[in-house]
């Protein structure tokens, strides 16, 4: 998927609903026919939360699901923008630029996929799991969260994955521990053709290393602070073996093997 990138556009959107779905996480549904029709799994929208104007930049959010002319975003309240987003109510008008970025790729001949999601890393996995299931690919999901109350999109994943295993930091659901324990087990047991990872960067890195060790192709979805979202400002760079890449247009999904971890941007001093 995502070989042909659909042209991004600015689309006015209307809030359909906005509600808590887990501890500290909400889901907002936006009426956005153009974006919903064009978006591919792993892409994102650059959202302008316009009624609150003491911040001025847009905020990037993965499209969790898209259907019936609507897009769903799962978001966690971490600062000014997401706090404002939480205040949005039905019929509020905002706008998005989207769909943006390169999403998940499904290598030819894939039969079995492992999806590893930590916390909000479940957000870009909704459409992915749907797409994989559509194509008859067998999906194992390894999901982690601080506690049972923070596991996202359980229903969707349970319905579409052949297997969904969970880990929580406090043991309130599944394994007590990190999701990287589950991913290691899965890689060992049931060799997938491809691994998809999203979550906190250290976790992504561990899974990437596990995959490299197991010789399984791995894709990661990286978050960077974004200015323009369309490739112009160079605020979102990711260091890769092929040089600096922009998360907003060259990513957010990268081949894990290409990523040079912990080395973003140039040298001090800009030389």
């Amino acid at each position: 998927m995502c070989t042909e990138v659909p042209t991004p556009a600015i689309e006015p959107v209307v809030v359909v609903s906005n509600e808590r779905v887990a501890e500290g996480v909400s889901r907002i549904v936006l009426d956005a026919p153009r974006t919903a029709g064009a978006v591919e799994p792993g892409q994102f929208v650059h959202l302008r939360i316009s009624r609150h104007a003491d911040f001025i930049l847009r905020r990037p959010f993965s499209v969790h699901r898209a259907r019936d002319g609507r897009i769903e975003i799962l978001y966690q309240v971490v600062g000014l923008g997401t706090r404002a987003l939480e205040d949005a109510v039905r019929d509020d008008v905002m706008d998005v630029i989207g769909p943006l970025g390169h999403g998940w790729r499904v290598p030819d001949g894939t039969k079995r996929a492992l999806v590893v999601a930590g916390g909000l890393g479940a957000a870009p996995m909704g459409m992915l799991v749907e797409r994989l299931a559509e194509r008859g690919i067998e999906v194992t999901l390894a999901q982690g969260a601080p506690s049972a109350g923070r596991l996202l999109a359980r229903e969707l994943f349970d319905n579409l994955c052949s297997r969904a295993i969970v880990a929580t930091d406090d043991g309130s659901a599944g394994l007590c521990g990190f999701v990287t324990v589950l991913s290691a087990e899965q890689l060992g047991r049931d060799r997938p053709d491809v691994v998809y990872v999203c979550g906190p960067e250290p976790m992504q890195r561990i899974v990437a290393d596990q995959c490299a060790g197991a010789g399984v192709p791995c894709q990661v979805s990286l978050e960077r602070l974004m200015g323009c979202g369309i490739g112009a400002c160079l605020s979102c760079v990711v260091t890769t073996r092929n040089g600096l890449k922009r998360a907003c247009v060259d990513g957010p999904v990268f081949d894990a093997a290409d990523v040079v971890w912990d080395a973003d941007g140039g040298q001090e001093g800009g030389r």
Partner: protein
Amino acid sequence: MSTVDMRVRVGALELRNPVMTASGTFGSGREYADFVDLSRLGAVVTKGVSFEPWAGNPSPRIVETPSGMLNSIGLQNPGVEAFCAGDLPWLAQRDVPVIVNVVGHRADEYAAVAERLDSEQAVHALEVNISCPNVDAGGMAFGTTCPAAADVVRSVRAVTSKTLIVKLSPNVTDVTEIARAVEAEGADAVSLINTLLGMVIDTRTFKPVLPRGVGGLSGPAVRPVAVRMVWQVAQAVSIPVIGMGGITCANDAAEFMLAGASAVAVGTANFIDPTTTVGVAEGLERFCAARGIGRVTDLVGAAWKKQ
């Protein structure tokens, strides 16, 4: 159509309207092609181009501030050769003047870039950036003293006959002094303001958010400072002034022109609404039409010129 004459002159260049893009906020123009018909702009100003490739600064490179943002991109760019091979041919196909923002660590590096670009027909003008706060060597260091500014401009002037714009730093006690110094060395125009030096400290980590500590402040927050400096410089020099800093709409652009700017540039606002530039150009035309102003140049300096 309209009866407002929107053309303005900047050195030897005639622009179809006064609205340009601010360097570093519009990529090479290509990134905005899905949103903006470039031929409706006065000019496209590219991001900073150096002689050798520059890697830019570590991440994070931006942080939002009240009505503004800090950036510490650090002039990441592939160098002038790659620019001439990649972005420039693409730009040459668009019906819009191209102004290349030129950077260097030393005066001779600026000159080397200028010399290389002088032979490129697709390049209509150079904007010499002596005001970037995000590099250790060069950049703003050149823009904050008269001798250093004069030195860079002299070196560049010697190797190019193209229209030469010098981009000034607001981080100075007296911006008119620097403006006069670069005018004396043969600059055809000045552009201002580049970003104000600022810092945000993360109260969770106790460290500056940007790895280099400081970054450049842009956006609506700086507009009053920018308008003031344009007002001062326009009265101090006789070359055209290109005004920028926090422009989001035609009204903001008009404010700069009334202060004395012959042309304006839109920067940070592109990130919020990628169509801002065309909106400003159209709005400026309506602004004039609604007031019976026949030529947009009639706005220039109207806030201080004697009738």
